[in-house]
């Protein structure tokens, strides 16, 4: 009898303890369920509906939204635009970041100074970066003199043929956006790549030098293979970041968007706020998310194969 009582008391205490433990994660789980899991479910649910965001009736239309996306030329051209920005970020931005990281991975003066300065653009917001560069690239003219600094500079050094409507010419605007995006992003790649370089054991380099290996051979046979995992990480994060660029586009070319500067996220915004098609916007989000996931998986697979060979 007494023994029974003790046991039941004990299990009650245990139950109370477990219950208390749940209370620790409760706030996090509630917020997560409400603001992540529910929208996650809803984006798939809405993508199967036609809905204007206001009316109480949501019309179920199956996969019609997805069928429409397949034929949406503006959508796929926006995908190309983002792809273009991503390719410039992958090549120009990452190559710059890696060469800077290589330069700073040795005993040179002012190494800390460079590190601090290179990491300045990444901590600025896209709105700020876009507006400041829009001011520098401005192609307006006031009183016969160019307003923007770049065009002013070009006239001052008598390169009149290079003076250009940088942000209103369809031929140059996307490259300008991509370069500004790279300006903002290279410092981030630099920091990660530098951290990766610094984990390589110095003794490896010294041993190779003793064996008479040249600078290039050391770079090819030690630095590159050792850095492979970091390269892959930087590549995937660059792709995910650059494909989803859109605030920079909004702040550099303004809200009056034109087709040749549209990227997928601005298309989703247009579907939602512009044409009021919430279902279609969600379907676009789902398609875009799948493309991003498949893309990063493919890079992981390909790099694993390259490693094996």
């Amino acid at each position, binding site marked *: 009898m007494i023994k029974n009582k003790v046991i039941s008391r004990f299990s009650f205490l245990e139950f109370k303890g*477990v219950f*208390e*433990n749940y209370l*620790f*994660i409760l706030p*996090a*789980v509630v*917020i*997560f369920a*409400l*603001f992540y899991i529910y*929208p*996650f479910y809803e*984006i798939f649910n*809405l993508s199967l509906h036609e809905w204007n*965001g206001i009316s109480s009736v949501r019309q179920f239309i199956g996969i019609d939204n997805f069928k429409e996306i397949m034929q949406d030329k503006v959508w796929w051209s926006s995908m190309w635009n983002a792809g273009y920005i991503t390719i410039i970020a992958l090549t120009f931005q990452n190559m710059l970041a890696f*060469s800077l990281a290589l*330069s700073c991975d040795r005993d*040179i*003066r002012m190494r800390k100074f*460079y590190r601090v*300065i*290179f990491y*300045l653009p*990444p*901590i600025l*917001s896209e*709105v*700020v*970066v876009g*507006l*400041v560069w829009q*001011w*520098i690239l401005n192609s307006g003219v*006031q009183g016969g*003199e160019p307003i923007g*600094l770049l065009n002013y500079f070009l006239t001052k050094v008598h390169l009149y043929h290079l003076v250009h409507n940088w942000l209103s010419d369809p031929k140059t605007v996307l490259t300008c956006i991509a370069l500004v995006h790279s*300006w903002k992003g290279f*410092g*981030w790649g630099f*920091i*990660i790549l530098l*951290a990766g370089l610094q984990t390589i054991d110095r003794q490896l380099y010294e041993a190779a030098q003793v064996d008479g290996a040249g600078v290039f051979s050391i770079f090819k046979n030690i630095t590159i293979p050792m850095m492979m995992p970091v390269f892959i*990480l930087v590549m995937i*994060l660059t792709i995910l970041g650059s494909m*989803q660029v859109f*605030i920079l586009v*909004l*702040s550099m070319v*303004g809200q009056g968007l034109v087709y040749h500067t549209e990227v997928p996220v601005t298309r*989703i915004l247009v579907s*939602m706020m512009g044409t009021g098609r*919430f279902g279609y*916007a*969600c379907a676009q989000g*789902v398609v*875009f*998310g799948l493309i*991003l*996931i498949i893309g990063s998986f493919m890079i992981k697979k390909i790099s694993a194969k390259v490693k094996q060979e």
Partner: protein
Amino acid sequence: MKLSLYLNRYKATKVLGSIFLHTFLMAVAITCLFPLIWMFRSALMTNQTIFVDKGIVPSSIHFENFYLAWTKGGFGMYFFNSVVYTVCVVFGIVIISSLAAYAFSRLKFPGKNLFFYMFLIAMMIPLPGSFVPLYVLMNKLHLVNTRIGYILCMINVGLSLSIYILKTFFDKMPSALEDAARMDGCSKLGIWLHVALPLARPAIAAIVIFNTLTVWNEYILATLLLNDKSLMPLQRGLMVFQGTHSVDYPLLMAGLTITVAPVVLVYLFMQKHIIKGLSAGAIVG
């Protein structure tokens, strides 16, 4: 003789190489700094001189743009809002994520790993366009155009990563002090507050830095959820300003300087911690 010649040549190539290296690094450093300097100097001009005077140091310096931007431009209000959002969100994230991370690392309950992996997976799946259903949800909850709605959404944005950083930190932390506190009859909540949190200070510093920057720089949710000018944070205010037809450039540049100044100043003072904290966040993110 021959040896010294070799040495001289070796030295010469080394010096040449380092000159070349520093020219390259300096050129990039100037490219990083110049737009900010140009922004600041443009903020010191008037609407007349800004189109004429192109010197780095303006011929006449006008600080009144900052006053005008702060009052007439509404940047004082935007600044206040940004501070409110940043403080509330970061405080909320630190409390909620450290509670959860402590439980995931130290306490026992069924389904612990399941819950933790849920947060982990959320961190890895890119969900572009998630702002659409989020907006729908906030509309349903009547939280559009309210401070609390925006704050809750932003807490969620930073939550997963913060839980992950804190959990890995707690995992590495020895639990001797906590055990001692438990022997002394300290409650679980007491141990979390008095023992675990103070010990996790480096990790908390990292998530404070990381999330402060995220909230201060956030734009899209602020755009969708806040329509009232009196509720807008700085990033949103800048775009409102830019959207008007004839842009008052000196005032816009003053507004940009007001937005950037706290970030840059704090960064320059605490760059060591910030670079460490942010690269940690970037790698696991």
